[in-house]
């Protein structure tokens, strides 16, 4: 079983590397066969990663999302799933490449860590924890996609490349990513709040992680409204997506690594 896990992890990583390289080649040579192969590689990598996740879930008896290895592995899976969702829905080919870069970066960092599944401590032994973490990472993955679309929107607006999807489509995907990310992040806060109440006796914590998660929710809630205001549509929305992802990075990595919080990453 352990041996199989390693095969699946390294197999998925190799497939993602191949996919990114093929997408880059597609940008250079513009052959349909290149993006098709790249997409097949993402599908292969995602299938292997899903099998690995399922195998680890089966071995542990719970969805392993507790330590740094497991959260990064799961986050990279969410990023790949988000990429596949957008690709299958809109056929944007390499336009969501940033999300795959994030996925690869996380995956590369995962390879340096011990994959052993830690024992589940009683405080984390609740479905609320699983729901809280999964919806959180799924939300973050959509925010990463929104960032990617925001950057591409600005590039397309200023450079006007035929390699990139048209502005209208980029704006549409950006808005959809923000909306889905906000919905998932709302569910994350709901599950987290209920869990905090049964674990600590209060549903909102003034810990810096709690404060910044609420700020993130307010920010993306504001963005869900901003798309109805003409001044904020298009370029303004793209800039907001970039700022929002900076807040996401600080909330997830900045607070988890640099500051002491009740959501330590290490």
């Amino acid at each position, binding site marked *: 079983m352990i041996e199989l896990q390693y095969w699946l992890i390294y197999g998925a990583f190799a497939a993602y590397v191949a996919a990114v390289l093929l997408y880059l080649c597609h940008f250079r040579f513009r052959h349909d066969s290149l993006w098709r192969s790249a997409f097949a590689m993402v599908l292969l990598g995602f299938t292997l990663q899903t099998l690995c996740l399922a195998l680890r879930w089966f071995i542990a008896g719970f969805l392993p999302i507790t330590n740094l290895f497991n959260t990064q592995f799961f986050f990279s899976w969410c990023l790949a799933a988000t990429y596949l969702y957008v690709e299958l829905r809109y056929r944007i080919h390499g336009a969501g490449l940033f999300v795959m870069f994030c996925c690869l970066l996380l995956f590369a960092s995962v390879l340096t860590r011990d994959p052993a599944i830690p*024992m589940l*401590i*009683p*405080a984390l*032994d*609740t479905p*609320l924890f699983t729901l809280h973490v999964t919806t959180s990472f799924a939300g973050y993955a959509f925010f990463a996609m929104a960032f990617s679309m925001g950057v591409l929107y600005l590039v397309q607006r200023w450079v006007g490349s035929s390699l990139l999807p048209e502005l209208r489509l980029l704006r549409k995907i950006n*808005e*959809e990513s923000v*909306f*889905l990310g906000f*919905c998932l992040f*709302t*569910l994350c806060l*709901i599950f987290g*709040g*209920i*869990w905090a*109440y*049964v*674990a*600590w*006796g*209060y*549903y*909102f*914590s*003034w*810990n*810096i992680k709690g*404060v*910044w998660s*609420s*700020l993130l929710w*307010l*920010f993306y*809630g*504001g963005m869900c*409204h*901003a*798309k*109805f*205001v*003409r001044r904020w*549509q298009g370029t303004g929305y793209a800039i907001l997506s970039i700022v929002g992802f900076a807040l996401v990075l600080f909330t997830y990595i900045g607070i988890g690594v640099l*500051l*002491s919080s009740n959501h330590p990453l290490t």
Partner: protein
Amino acid sequence: MTTNLSWYHRVWSLCCSLKLAIVLATCATLMAVGGSVLMPANPQVFGPLDEMILKDWLMEIAAQSPALTWWVPIASLLVLLLGLNTLCCVIDWLVHIRARWRKSGEYLIHSGFFLIVCAFLWGNLIGYRAGGQPVFVGQAVELPPHGVVMVLEDVRPIAAAGGRVMEMSNTLALYHDDRLLKRVETRANHPLTWKGLVVIPADAGQVRMGGQLRTYSLMTINYDPGAGLALVGTIAMGVGVVVAMFSFYRKRSTGDHPDIE
């Protein structure tokens, strides 16, 4: 009469305004982003925020360090105003529900947010938090404000497969005028809850008293009268999210485009 009506309409439009919501959310976000930078460096000031209700913290601790804490009441006020703005939007939606029923999901999220803001305010004005209260086995403790009495009946360890003690299980009983209201075996994520009261055993130990070894449990006893309302708010929000996602895809499939203000 016409002037009064238009004045009233203008104020109401401002209260329901999308732009006002964005301004309030932005101001609250910026205020808290700036203020929260002070939190990690001042744990003696901000650490007790989770140990007491906000009203007590503002009066006892924030009042001593106004230079560090001024942003908390301002950000809270802005969120409260955002909650009121949300309420106005919901009322406006209800008035025009025939034309706007497709936005039910979004407005359920708005309603949930307003209810949670109200619940937070209620709980942080008249609730209480008491952490690390030692209670001995057999001891009865009166819990305000309902006049109920909690008795710690038993404390026993829960061991993992290898024999290692993982956590402590506490049997707690709640009485009112000698009538048993509830008996619960509490452990991690399984507290005793009753009408806004929540009792969470945090730790346990033994101490020698009068030649006898007595077992005690350290309890966190919180009372939040708004907890039920907050739960209603989260349910409204959760249902709203599901409905909003469904209607989002429905609108996309019919080519519906976001309105432009």
